[in-house]
């Protein structure tokens, strides 16, 4: 009996563990989680609580930026050096974390064409928008009941022929 039970227990445990590993590999703990990547991320950027990074909309205040959204719009309008690039159309999204001190890090970029397919934008255009996004320094620290939190934020740039048309959200 023992000869049958032991392999059975081993097999069941192994199967259960391998299934959990598969499941955890399929999805992050939460959709959109950005883990630290030593190859691209600033090691000096810290989040206060790695296990509890909220989404910007969780605080019910929309985008939290000093001077509100028009400051972001005006900043990119004034600063972005984007010459016309015929055929460069679609949406460039930059997602990042605003930490509990209002600093930003772990930037990730995703390009998308007008048909919602992944698209690699011109490198100079991408670098320009990424660099400017990294320099935004008016993010407001998210608070709830006087406690400060880290949160994910994104900016989506609508691009037509290489020109910046609109910024979301």
């Amino acid at each position: 009996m023992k000869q049958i039970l032991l392999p059975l227990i081993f097999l069941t445990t192994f199967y259960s563990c391998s299934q959990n590993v598969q499941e955890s590999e399929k999805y992050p703990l939460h959709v959109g989680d950005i883990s630290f990547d030593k190859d691209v991320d600033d090691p000096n950027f810290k989040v206060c609580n790695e296990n509890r990074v909220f989404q910007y909309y969780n605080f019910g205040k929309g985008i939290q930026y000093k001077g509100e959204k028009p400051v972001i719009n005006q900043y990119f309008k004034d600063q972005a050096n984007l010459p016309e690039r015929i055929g460069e159309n679609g949406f460039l999204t930059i997602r990042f974390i605003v930490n509990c001190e209002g600093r930003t890090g772990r930037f990730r970029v995703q390009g998308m064409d007008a048909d919602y397919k992944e698209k690699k934008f011109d490198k100079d255009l991408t670098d320009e928008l990424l660099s400017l996004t990294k320099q935004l320094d008016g993010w407001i620290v998210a608070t709830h009941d006087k406690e400060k939190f880290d949160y994910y934020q994104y900016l989506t740039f609508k691009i037509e022929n290489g020109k910046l048309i609109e910024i979301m959200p």
Partner: protein
Amino acid sequence: MTRAVLILVFLPICVYGQPNCNVYKLKGDSACYHGCMASNVDFGQGSRQSQLQFDKAIELCPTFDYAYSEKAVPYLKQGDFVTWRKLIDKAVELNPIGQLGYRGWCRFQFIRDYKGAIEDIERLSSLTRFDIGYSINSDYHLNVAKALCYKALGQKEKAIQIMEKQFSEKDYSPMTYDYLHLGVLKMETGDNDGAILYLNKSIAYNDYMAENYYYLGLTYKRQKKMKEFKENMEKAKAYYLKGYKRFDPYTSPLDKIYLSDIERELNVAN
């Protein structure tokens, strides 16, 4: 009687929201009943468990569009529109009448894909002879959302026509922002009297929006009525500071104003 019961049972799955799994039970579709039930446990939107639960629901019931559209939501809210689109397209493929209006609305609200939103809403209209319904956040009738897309594309007269037609529909009850948008459109197309009429209607309907006074002020400014211009801008500022303003936790709605907009106009007025 049987027909009436069937309509009542099916109704909740036609309108958007948590599905009524008993629909499948009554049809004797055990796999989809269990798939539907699996999707009804709340693990927290976007969590691994939640996403796996929708996978399980889809595995059990591959035609269950709700599981695809709900699995898609966290990607939409977090700006991953590529993944969102793959999932929502599957939901639309399975249930075009139930999902097209939702996809169209999201394309407008989150992505400002005005042409795409119009396509979806118009395709929905072509598929049903019934009312096409409202945006998922209940702010707009989908025809008004379509009108706003035309406005964003520069076709303001067409936007006005669509709105006026919708507002004149029998049994249509105005939504919170309807008159504001029509008032702004009137102002932008040079119809100052129309703008004043609809912005005042908007105030009568919902006097909790700085936007009403801001655009009313702008209209008076166009008419060179500087006293009314200033009064309305001051009121807009007071309302804004009290938190009486257009707000959406996810995006910046069309015709929304900010404090800097009001202060810029007050500088002109003073």
